[in-house]
């Protein structure tokens, strides 16, 4: 049974439609990420699940029960905000205990539960401090403790990491996932950061302009994007106009840059037949080399135009005839320089195809 179901949900603000008819199943115990750029409707969906917004149409089910008319304070959800939203006039312990006061928890058990929650987020000794005495990362841990101590049916995280600086963000990412796995709570996580989504999720829901573009496991949405938007939003992709010239046991597409490419059928699930198509080549699958290609690898001559050196990796912009392509390669020595003539190597099985 799914923990949360959005059934034909539509959300309009005046004449603006923030969420177009959306149906979504969030499995019990899963870590599900709503991923998309700002304004894609991901936060609107989260706020509707939370009860902070009412859907214009459709039904929201939590644990199989319709909750459209259940006010937020009766939904038993844990909510964590981007800006932590800790109560500044209450101590850390009072913050964490806040939700317990409204539940059937005997007063005598509250301190122990608060302490357990603080230990879970690895801050056992800050109970009598005030939020402003803690760092941003610590405050976010307390916000998490406050949300999970009430044993919510669903944990809702609204960009909880984006206010933290880069290093802390990666630590918290691991930490958050560890805690979620330990308590096994169904989690809906909203982010615009693809690396957070890929690292943490059991399931990613990619959204754009109020619509769900693709739902899948991280490796599915990454390797087999269902749309041009997904291909561009997750990682860097080269998308070229192509023709599908064979659609059967194997799918063969032809474009001006790489010629005939045999794409695995599994990586062209939305391509229904021959005709106009798009070839999707991940930037990190395009390898710059001086040598000729081994057997079964496509090789095309190219010229390096721009070199964006990033330490362990380098991003090249290369020109092949009319087309400019992006390639991200790991390097262990000197990168190629602008102006170098190189061969671009591409394994056909690394390509994906979309309808044109």
């Amino acid at each position, binding site marked *: 049974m799914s923990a949360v179901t959005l059934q034909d949900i539509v959300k309009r603000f005046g004449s603006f439609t923030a969420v177009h008819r959306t149906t979504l199943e969030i499995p019990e115990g899963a870590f599900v990420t709503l991923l998309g750029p700002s304004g894609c409707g991901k936060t609107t969906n989260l706020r509707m699940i*939370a009860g902070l917004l009412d859907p214009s149409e459709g039904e929201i089910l939590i644990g199989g029960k319709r909750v459209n008319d259940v006010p*937020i*304070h009766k939904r038993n959800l844990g909510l964590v905000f981007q800006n932590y*939203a800790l109560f500044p006039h209450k101590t850390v312990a009072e913050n964490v205990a*806040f939700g317990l*006061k*409204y*539940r059937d928890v005997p007063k005598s058990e509250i301190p122990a539960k608060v302490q357990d929650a603080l230990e879970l987020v690895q801050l056992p000794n800050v109970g009598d401090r005030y939020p402003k005495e803690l760092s941003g990362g610590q405050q976010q841990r307390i916000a998490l403790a406050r949300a999970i101590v009430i044993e919510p049916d669903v944990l809702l995280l609204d960009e909880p990491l984006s206010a933290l600086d880069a290093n802390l963000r990666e630590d918290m990412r691991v930490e958050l996932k560890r805690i979620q796995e330990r308590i096994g709570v169904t989690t809906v996580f909203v982010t615009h950061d693809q690396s957070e989504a890929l690292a943490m999720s059991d399931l990613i829901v990619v959204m754009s302009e109020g619509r769900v573009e693709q739902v899948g496991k991280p490796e599915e949405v990454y390797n087999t994007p269902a749309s041009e938007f997904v291909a561009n939003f997750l990682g860097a992709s080269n998308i070229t106009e192509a023709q599908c010239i064979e659609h059967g046991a194997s799918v063969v597409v032809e474009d001006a840059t790489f010629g005939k490419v045999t794409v695995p059928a599994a990586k062209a699930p939305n391509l229904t037949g021959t005709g106009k198509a798009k070839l999707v080549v991940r930037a990190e699958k395009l390898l710059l080399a001086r040598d000729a290609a081994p057997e079964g690898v496509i090789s095309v001559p190219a010229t390096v135009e721009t070199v964006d050196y990033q330490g362990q990796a380098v991003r090249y912009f290369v020109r092949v005839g009319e087309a400019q392509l992006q390639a991200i390669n790991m390097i262990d020595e000197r990168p190629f320089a602008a102006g170098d003539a190189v061969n671009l190597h591409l394994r056909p099985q690394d390509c994906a195809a979309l309808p044109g």
Partner: protein
Amino acid sequence: MSVEAREARQPWILLSPALAAVLFLLIIPLMFIVVYSFWLRSAMGADQVGFYLDNWQKALSDRFYRDILLNTLKIAAITTLICGLMGYPAAYFIARSKGNKMILLLLLMLPFWISYIIRTMSWINILGTSGALNTLLMTLGIISDPMQMLYNEATVILGLVHFLLPFMVLNVYVSLEGIDTNLEDAATSLGATRWEAFTQVTLPLSLPGLAAGGLLCFVLGAGTYITPVILGGPTDAMFANLVFEAIITQLNWPLGSALSLLLLAVLGVLVAIYNRYLGMAQLAKGLG
């Protein structure tokens, strides 16, 4: 001159016009008042220069002055309470409204464009014997003769509330604006009802604004002079009216000085208590 010395001097140069104004227009005249309060008014007309405690003794021991001082503080306190009860919901409404906030704030400021005296006198046209309310009631046949509704303590408080309410609303509004709306959402998500979220989170966090508004209303209310003159009866004098009476009517500057310093001291203690617990910064926020 070194750069450091120049930089150290800069704030003082910028402040000097304001400091000069405070010194010459406030501190020095106030010192005159302090000195005056120890002089003595003689029967001849000319004040006797010296160090006499007679005015202070009179101001502090005379029951008449004490009663009016207590009554002044009572009126100011009632006014402040009413302003708080009326102003808080209005401020909450403005702070939480979307889009038209600026128009609402402008409407709140609108009364300041009209002279305080005119605004106070407008109540005569509403509540006077030939005012709007009496005319309406007589036209409707509810009463046959006009009622005397003016010139009592209630109308003084009414006038003060009318005058001071915007100060309360602005102060509360500013503190509510500074409260993250996510806090109430967080509280409700944890199981609190909207009302519990308000009393547990929003209200305590907005208390500094309420206190700042309260202090302003109280101090301005307690120091008021015009309102009881226009809307009060003969027995509704407030302390500032006594000061006026002593200085302008009786030409007794020494006594008037002592009385005005007494009021200043009482209100000064209140401000000091406020400052001790909440700090002046909150007040500056509300005024700015």
